[in-house]
């Protein structure tokens, strides 16, 4: 059975790194107001930061202002964040994974952000529709008994 959708909240942000703090606040408020497990907020904030930083830093070929649409969704057993942008088509699922065992000198500087996201969430999905990149991250949780 599909996980039932209980609540949805949306927001739009500009392609400006300073906007990420506002997203962070929205995620924290969303999790705390619904009394969801707090580690969810920590993991979601970091995952969203990594994805949005990539989009804003590397995704755009012009210097114009762009809007990124965000949607946070609470399901019965998961929180889902959907990020939609009009940046250059880019599928982060195809990014190479860093070698976790390499030492300091051999370890490459890039590729870390998406690796962190994959470690933090249960599901990372990418679609490209109507010229838009759509990223969907899902993290499942179990509510404590009796709540």
């Amino acid at each position, binding site marked *: 059975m599909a996980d039932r959708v209980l609540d949805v909240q949306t927001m739009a942000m500009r392609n400006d790194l300073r906007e*990420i703090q506002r997203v962070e606040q929205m995620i924290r408020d969303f999790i705390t107001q619904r009394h969801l497990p707090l580690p969810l907020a920590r993991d979601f904030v970091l995952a969203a*930061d990594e994805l949005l*930083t990539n989009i804003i830093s590397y995704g755009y070929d012009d210097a114009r202002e762009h809007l990124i649409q965000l949607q946070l969704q609470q399901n019965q057993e998961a929180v889902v964040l959907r990020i939609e942008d009009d940046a250059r088509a880019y599928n982060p699922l195809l990014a190479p994974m860093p070698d976790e065992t*390499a030492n300091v000198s051999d*370890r490459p*500087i890039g590729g*870390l952000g998406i*690796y962190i996201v994959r470690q933090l969430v249960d599901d990372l999905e990418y679609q490209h529709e109507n010229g838009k990149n759509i990223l969907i991250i899902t993290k499942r949780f179990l509510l404590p008994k009796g709540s």
Partner: protein
Amino acid sequence: MECIEEKQNDLTILGLSGRMDSLTSRVVEEKILALIENGERHLIVDCAQLTYISSAGLRVFLMAAKRATQVKGRLTLTTLNDEVQQVFDLTGFSTILNICRSREEAIAN
């Protein structure tokens, strides 16, 4: 993001407070690289007041550790809080960087 520099004999201790993300990590990067350029070889970075780190911050530590190794120096991080430690663990950085539990331990090394 704040970096406070402190001297103990031939050691330089850099105390970080605040967040290391894509907006703020550059401050730390410039600070550490400048210290190494100026001849510092044994740098201790105290992370007790560091509340948040993303890959942008990890990149700075990795770059700084590489630079320190090149000049036969050493970069040691100390007193990571649980959230920051978790990000280091997730990425395998706990094993590739020198990390000590306390400042005293870092100085003794």
